[in-house]
């Protein structure tokens, strides 16, 4: 199987926040922690665009690179997960992440920062799949139930695509070909690498 990936189709996202609600409900995420958020660019201006953002489970995840206690690991499907028993809540991953995915509960005394929480691609954590211990720390494990992430499955306009990267790319490509616009996939290059990223401009193109 190819890697699990997320894509948000900005042409379709209507900023309903259904994905945010689905995520919070499915995993019983506490107040103040938002594993998924909807971001609107040029809000209020004609042509505004909205995208749903969470952990993108990057191919070369910066959070994994900077974690001083090595609490992150990657599953066979490419889902980036972490072990809350190892996390010390230092917040380095929060600074490294280009998507603002790591969240920190601040319900402790004096607003002390707790252990990091983030999107798990509905794949739980290192505890036994589907166990109560896993649910309390990481939320539901839908992948082990043969399901896809709740946010994408609840998306009413199907703007948020999640699952096998090849299938995601196929679905998105079909849409772009059909409508003839909206090929920009925000975050795709940053998370999964891009052939264009970092390349010098072609000869003759204005710089």
């Amino acid at each position: 199987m190819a890697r699990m990936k997320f894509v948000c189709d900005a042409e379709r996202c209507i900023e309903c926040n259904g994905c945010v609600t689905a995520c919070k409900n499915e995993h019983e995420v506490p107040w103040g922690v938002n594993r998924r958020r909807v971001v609107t660019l040029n809000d209020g201006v004609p042509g505004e665009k909205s995208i749903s953002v969470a952990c993108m489970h990057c191919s070369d995840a910066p959070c994994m690179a900077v974690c001083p206690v090595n609490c992150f690991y990657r599953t066979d499907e490419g889902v980036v997960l972490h072990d809350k028993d190892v996390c010390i809540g230092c917040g380095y991953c929060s600074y490294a992440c280009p998507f603002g995915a790591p969240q920190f509960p601040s319900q402790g005394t004096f607003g002390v920062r707790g252990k990091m929480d983030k999107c798990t691609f509905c794949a739980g954590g290192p505890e036994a799949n589907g166990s109560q211990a896993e649910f309390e720390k990481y939320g539901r494990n839908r992948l082990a139930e043969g399901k896809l992430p709740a946010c994408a499955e609840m998306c009413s306009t199907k703007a948020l695509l999640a699952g096998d990267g090849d299938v995601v790319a196929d679905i998105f490509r079909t849409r772009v070909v059909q409508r003839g616009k909206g090929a920009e996939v925000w975050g795709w290059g940053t998370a999964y690498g891009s052939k264009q990223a970092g390349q010098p401009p072609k000869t003759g193109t204005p710089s």
Partner: protein
Amino acid sequence: MKHIVLFTTLAACLTACGEKPQTMALPRSDAPSYTGVTTGSAGSSAFTAPGWKPGDKTGWEQQLKARQQNSQNDYSRMN
């Protein structure tokens, strides 16, 4: 006598300063998703989606792909 008591007390206090050896705890291994959940019987629970058998990796992958096509690809559903 005074010295003995003092040294004994100091020695007893210093035992609290002992440092236990620390090893870096690496993340525990995670069971692959295709093995299913541990709460139900034979890897499946009441919430497990039908169409695959826990432990069958290929079946799990095919089931997820089919679910993805059916739920997210509206072009294949409409045409």
